C-alpha cells in the first residue's frame, strides 16, 4: 500500500526527516510514537503534499504510484487522508457544505457520479450518528468555535464519509475525553478493512488499547529508531523516550 524509502525532508532549510524507511501493507495499522518535535507531523504533511515540505532525497510510493508527482487534491482523490493534529477553521462554510464539496470533488476526480443533496444528507446522517456529531454541529461553520474534542470528531466524520484507503491520524486522541476517545476509536475501527491501511500518530498507549496496531514505530530526531509490536507502546509508556535520546530532541 505505502512504501517510503530513505526519505529526507527539509522545512525552511532545516532537515527534519533524515532518512525514513517505512512500509505499510494493505489492511495494516501502524502506530508512530515519539517525542515532541521528532517529525511526526512533518511526515504526515509530506505524505499529503503540503507546500514548503521539501523532499531532498528518497521516494514515496502509494499503490505503486509515485506520490511526490501528485498534487495535494490528487492524492486525496486517490485515497490519502490526513486527520489533522490542529484542524483548520473555515469561516462561513458549514460542516455539511464542506463535506459535500469534498466528497463530490473526489468523486468527480475519480470519474464517479456526484451525490445529490438527498443522498448526501442520508449518508451524513448515517455516519454522524455513531460519532455523536449533532445536526447542530453540521450546520455550523467547520471547526469555528468547535471544542478540541468536537474538532477531532469532525475529522473522523470526514474520514468516515470520504472512505480513504490510507488514513493518517495525527494525534486524534489528544483533547478527547474518555467517552469521546471510545466513540472515536470505534469510528476508526469501523473503517478497518483488509483494503484500508492507517498510520496512527499518538503519544499515548491508551489509544492503542482501542485501535490495536500491527506495528509500532518510534520516531526520534527524524529517524525511525525502533520498530516493534503493540507491546512496544506499553514499554514506552513505562520508560519514556530517554534511551532514544529524547531529552535532546524535546
Amino acid at each position: 500500500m505505502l512504501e517510503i524509502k530513505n526519505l529526507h525532508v527539509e522545512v525552511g532549510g532545516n532537515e527534519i526527516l533524515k532518512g525514513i524507511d517505512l512500509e505499510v501493507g494493505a489492511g495494516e495499522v501502524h502506530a508512530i510514537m515519539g517525542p515532541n518535535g521528532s517529525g511526526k507531523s512533518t511526515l504526515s504533511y509530506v505524505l499529503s503534499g503540503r507546500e514548503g515540505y521539501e523532499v531532498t532525497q528518497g521516494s514515496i510510493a502509494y499503490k505503486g504510484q509515485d506520490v511526490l508527482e501528485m498534487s495535494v487534491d490528487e492524492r486525496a482523490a486517490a485515497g490519502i487522508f490526513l486527520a489533522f493534529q490542529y484542524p483548520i477553521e473555515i469561516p462561513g462554510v458549514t460542516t455539511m457544505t464542506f463535506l459535500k464539496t469534498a466528497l463530490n470533488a473526489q468523486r468527480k476526480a475519480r470519474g464517479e457520479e456526484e451525490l445529490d443533496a438527498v443522498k448526501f444528507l442520508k449518508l451524513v446522517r448515517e455516519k454522524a450518528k455513531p460519532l455523536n456529531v449533532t445536526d447542530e454541529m453540521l450546520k455550523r461553520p467547520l471547526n469555528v468555535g468547535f471544542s478540541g474534542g468536537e474538532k477531532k470528531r469532525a475529522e473522523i466524520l470526514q474520514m468516515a464519509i470520504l472512505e480513504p484507503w490510507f488514513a493518517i491520524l495525527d494525534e486524534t486522541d489528544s483533547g478527547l475525553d474518555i467517552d469521546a476517545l471510545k466513540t472515536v476509536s470505534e469510528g476508526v475501527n469501523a473503517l478497518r478493512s483488509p483494503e484500508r491501511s492507517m498510520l496512527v500518530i499518538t503519544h499515548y498507549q491508551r489509544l492503542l488499547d482501542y485501535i490495536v496496531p500491527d506495528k509500532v514505530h518510534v520516531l526520534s530526531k527524524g529517524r525511525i529508531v525502533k520498530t516493534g509490536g503493540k507491546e512496544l507502546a506499553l514499554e514506552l509508556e513505562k520508560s519514556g523516550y530517554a534511551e532514544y535520546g529524547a531529552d535532546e530532541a524535546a
Partner: protein
Amino acid sequence: MAAVKETVETVGEVEKYKYGFSTEIESEKAPIGLTEDTVRYISAKKDEPEWMLEWRLEAFRRWKNMKEPTWAKVFYPTMDYQNAYYYAAPKQTVAPESLDEVDPKLLETYEKLGIPLEEQKMLAGVAVDAVFDSVSVVTTFKEKLKEAGVIFCPISEAIRDYPELVKKYLGSVVPVTDNFFATLNSAVFSDGSFVYIPKGVRCPMELSTYFRINEKQTGQFERTLIVAEEGSYVSYLEGCTAPQRDENQLHAAVVELVAMDDAEIKYSTVQNWYPGDEEGKGGIYNFVTKRGDCRGRNSKISWTQVETGSAITWKYPSCILRGDNSRGEFYSIAISNTKQQVDSGTKMIHLGKNTSSRIVSKGISAGGSSNTYRGLVSVHKKAENVRNFTQCDSLLIGDKCSAHTVPYIEAKNPTAILEHEATTSKISDEQLFYCMQRGVPEEEAVALIVNGFCRDVLQQLPMEFAVEAQKLVGISLEGSVG
C-alpha cells in the same frame, strides 16, 4: 429554476466569461452622438407624451453644464460622449403581444443566458422583464400580477399607461440634477422596469429584470422605478450581462425606490457585466445611481448586491430613512479580479426618529484589481435614537491587489449609536491546504472559502439566486491563484 440549473450545469465548462457572446440581430439605432435631437429621437421612438420629452430636455440642458465626478478611486480615460450610440433596439415592426411574436434569436440569447423566458418553464414563479440593449422585450406573467393589482411593466409602457403615477414618483428620489450620470440617464434613458404594488398587497412572486447590452458602442441607460404603497411588500431582482468587446461601454442606470408606511422593498442585484480582459481591455463602465426612499413610518428597504463584473463599478445604493422607525439595509459582495476597479458602498441618511440601518460589505480583491468600500452614515439633527451597524470585511487574494475602506460618519444628534467594524484578511495557505487535502482542487477551494467569507450576504439573496451567485463567485475568481 431553469436559470439556476443551467448555470450549475455550465459551470464546469465555463472558461472566463460565459456571457461573452453577441447576437447577430438587426437593430435600429439613433444617430451616433448626443444632441437635443438624440433626446427627441428617443422620446419619439417611445411615443412619449410631451411632458416626458420636456423632462428629458430639461435634464439634457442641465447635463451639458455638468462635469464628470472625480472623487471616486477609479481611473479611466476621458469618455467621448459624442462617439457612442444612445439608443439601439432589436428591429421589429410591431410590438410583440406574446412570446410567439418575439424574434426567436432574442429568445435564444436569453436562453443562453439562462433566463427562463418561456412561461411554461417558469413554474418557479419569477416574473421576468428583459431589457435587450435599450428596449424591454417582454414581460412575462403580466396577467397573474394584474390580478393581484401589481403593475410590472417596461417603464416606457408605464409612461403611456400610468402617466399620473410616473409623474408623481419619477425623479422624486433621484432628482434630475442629482449627479452627472443620473442627469445623463434622465435625458436619454431608453427603458427599464416600473413596479407598483398597491396598498396592503404582498407581491405574489419575485419580480426580476435581466439587462443585456448587445450592440457595439452602445450605452445602456435604464431606469427603474418601484413604488410600494402602504403595507405592501415586494422582492425584486436584477441580473446583468454583456458581450465581450474590446471597447468600453457605458452603463449608467438610475433606480428609484419608494416605500410608504409599513411597506418593504427588497432589491437584489447580481451584476456580471463583462469585466474586460486580463490586460484591462474592454469591459463595462458601470456608473449607477440607486436610491431608496423610506418615505413612510416603519418602512424598510433592503439592498443586496453581488458585483462581479464591469471594468469599473461606481455604485452606492442608498437609503433615505425619512419615516420614523424606518430601516435601511445594505448587503454587498464586491469581487474584483485582473484589472477591475470597484468603488462601491452605500449611504444611509437618517432623517426620522428611531431609524436604523445595517451595512454588511464584503470586498474580495484578486489579481491586480482595486476594491474600495465608500460608505456614509449620516444622522440628521432631529433624528433621535438612530442606530447603525456597519461591518466591512476585505479579503485579499495574492499581493498585487488592494482594498480600501473609506467610511464617512456625520452624526448631528447625540443619541445616535453607530457601530463600525472592519477587518482585512487573506486566504491562508493553511486553509487552502486543508481543503485540498480533502480533495477540493485549488480554484474550487478558493471559491469555497470566499463563499464562506460572503455567507452573511449570500443568505440575504432569494434561494435560487444565491446558488447562482455562489457559482459566479467561483467563476470570477478563476485564475486568481497559483
